[in-house]
């Protein structure tokens, strides 16, 4: 039990003394996951919306596939990305393997099914009067889409949060396509795993606690953004 308390104390010290290695990994984790989730939102929200509101060939199959892909192992995605980005792979000439951008792409593949599925779910469960009311008030297609997203904003916020949590805590992609290179591709999750395997339990725990703090911060931020902003004349 003692080593746990020692670990917690060391974790507190590393965080409050702003240990440069820990902060470096934390910042990299945040920007990589934010970029991946941001791209996933750009692609996934319109697709989730289309799946909920439009009937097209293969719609059912896309819904089932995106739901199944939510649980895909991160190691599998990492291996697939490695196959694509390694020198002899189809996107090898891009030379992004062992760079943060390879991790961004891998995490994008993790985040996308979550954003698509949860956005689809949130919009599909909206009251049928939302679309009818918007249409009858003269809203064009874009405004109606914006209205659906606005009305389903809690669900979309939850999708974003879930995707971010999955990305920031994943290990498989960052380890395989990033290589856990200190100062270049090391994220909090890979650093925590490495420190733990070296027997540096306290540093590993510090990074784990920092991951938890980041998740908590993002949760609060998204909850705040999802809150109503009264506007009146």
């Amino acid at each position: 039990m003692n080593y746990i308390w020692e670990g917690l104390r060391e974790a507190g010290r590393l965080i409050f003394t702003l240990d440069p290695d820990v902060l470096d990994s934390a910042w990299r984790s945040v920007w990589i996951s934010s970029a991946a989730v941001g791209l996933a939102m750009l692609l996934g929200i319109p697709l989730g919306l289309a799946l909920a509101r439009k009937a097209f060939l293969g719609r059912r199959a896309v819904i089932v596939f995106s739901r199944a892909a939510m649980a895909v192992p991160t190691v599998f995605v990492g291996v697939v990305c490695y196959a694509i980005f390694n020198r002899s792979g189809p996107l090898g000439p891009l030379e992004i393997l062992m760079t943060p951008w390879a991790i961004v792409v891998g995490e994008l593949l993790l985040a996308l099914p979550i954003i698509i599925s949860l956005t689809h779910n949130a919009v599909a469960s909206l009251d049928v009067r939302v679309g009818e009311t918007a249409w009858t008030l003269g809203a064009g297609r874009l405004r109606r889409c914006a209205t659906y997203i606005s009305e389903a904003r809690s669900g979309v916020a939850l999708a974003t949060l879930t995707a971010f949590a999955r990305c920031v805590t994943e290990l498989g992609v960052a380890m395989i396509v990033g290589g856990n290179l200190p100062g270049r591709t090391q994220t909090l999750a890979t650093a925590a795993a490495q420190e733990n395997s070296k027997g540096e339990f306290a540093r590993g725990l510090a990074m784990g606690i920092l991951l938890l703090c980041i998740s908590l911060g993002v949760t609060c931020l998204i909850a705040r953004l999802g809150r109503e902003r009264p506007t009146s004349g």
Partner: protein
Amino acid sequence: MIDVEDLCVTKEGNPICAVSQFRLASGQVAIAIGKNGSGKSTFLRVLAGLETSFSGRCKVHFDCRERVFVHQTPYLFRGTVWSNVMYGLRASGAERREETVHMWMARLGIDHLSGRNVDQLSGGERKRTALARAFAVRAKLILLDEPFSEMDDAGAATIAEVLCHNDDTSIIFTSPSDSYHKLPIAREMRISAPSMGAAEA
């Protein structure tokens, strides 16, 4: 101008709305009276363009964007009373929006609720907000599904006043009873369960 003849809406093999004949000129107010389940709401939905699967003739000489339908239990978008009344005006890119919003909120007696979140409104206040939103867009045809339900006497009088003093907009509203005979209504249509047919009075 609205011209309906032998209209019948069928869902899963069951007729849910039948209207033998109905005509309404621009600027007139009509009431469709019928019991629950007689197809009044479906009739309005057909006129609004929300129900497109029907047999018979239904000619509405207004573009879909010039018709507004208000549900019996209206849906208010998340936000405030103000943002809801503003919604249709923003959608249509209308000018002098703020002035129009103020005017319709005042006419419907909800100007004091301007900044209130719609979650904090009573049933009657929600209905008045939806009506202000519908009237604010200056549609040529306004279809109101039981606008007087859930309204107290003062609220009903306010809505009646708005219906009476609306110059060039055609209005059709439904009601389960004929207690609105004081309104200057051009057409009064009795609508009954489809199996029994429907007739214009």
